[in-house]
């Protein structure tokens, strides 16, 4: 499945009310490590049709970043049933991100 762009408007619907595990990638265009991580997150989305992968631009969505205590990016947060279960900060290899899903 493709990566879904999430904003304050659709966060509740796409992330909190999701029936499946959500991997949320908080990022920004100016952040080098975020750009390194982007293709990995896209691959994970393609290879795992049973989960939902979303991208949140922290420059546009600073309220979401603040609400979820994101103060360093890239920051990947895994939500299950609307609750944060895992988080990783900074660039991580693909294996490490997949491991966060715990599926």
């Amino acid at each position: 499945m493709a990566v879904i762009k999430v904003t304050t408007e659709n966060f509740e619907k796409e992330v909190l009310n999701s029936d499946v595990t959500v991997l949320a990638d908080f990022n920004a265009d100016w952040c080098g490590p975020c750009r390194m991580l982007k293709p990995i997150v896209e691959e994970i989305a393609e290879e795992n049709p049973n989960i939902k992968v979303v991208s949140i631009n922290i420059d546009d969505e600073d309220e979401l970043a603040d609400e979820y205590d994101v103060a360093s990016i890239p920051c990947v947060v895994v939500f299950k049933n609307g609750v944060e279960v895992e988080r990783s900060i900074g660039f991580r290899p693909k294996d490490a991100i997949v491991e966060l899903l715990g599926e």
Partner: protein
Amino acid sequence: MYDIVIIGAGPAGLTAAIHARRAEKSVLVLEASSYGGQIINTPVIENYPAAADISGFDFAQSIYNQAVKLGAEIKFEKAIRIENTEYDKSVVTPKGSYKCKAVIIATGSLNRKLGLDNEDNLAGRGVSYCATCDGAFYKNKPVAVVGGGNTALEDALYLADIAQTVYLIHRRDTFRGEEATVSKLKQRDNVKFILNSTVTKLNAEKRLKSIEVTSTDGSTQTIEVNGLFTAIGRIPENQSFADVVSLDKDGYIIADETCKTNAKGIFTAGDNRTKSVRQLVTAASDGAIAATEAIKYIAE
């Protein structure tokens, strides 16, 4: 069996890979995290010859593509040990062991931490080691910078434009960094100097709320900050190899401009080598030299 295993895919390691591949040596590059190394955090590189205005990300991408196109194999595995016998060498990762004729250690360095309780838990929740990476999260909020070198001073100046207040905390009363930057900081109303002091405690709920600062006279104060930017130097990532190559007292691999370590057939390149100038261009230069010396060693 590879001709050369290179540990680290930063500018030094990837430059070594390019040179080794052009000499038609088989090359495996092992990388624990992302290729490119710490340069990927730099928004704009301004001091590299003939690339006056390139982002660290684009630089890393370009050098990576160049190495891969020339036939370097890259595996994202962390080297945890080098086995060095009289006959051959192996580089060991959690996933396997790679035999080779020569090794180039180009692991770079990591940010030095304060060593406080819950520092790791608060990384990304108030604790940061990169002002240009994370500064944007602290618009109109109070922050502190720890350190006395150029990085700390430049971080403080960068943050002074973004944050409400910047407390600059340094364990001495004079700075190692440039006087010109200190003067600029003194002109800023929102920069407050806290000298002869160290951070002794991080107070947090979900994220950093305040820090305890202890002065050399023994007095303590609590300062409310949302962000703490630590710039107290870097430490080389050489500990895993201390049993095969000699390190200096700060942990750098002892090697001169030839990049040869005390162990035959093991070379080192980049920021983790003993040297006086640690820049992108000197990392690349080391990579070229280490590869050339490794090729010579294999031919012997």
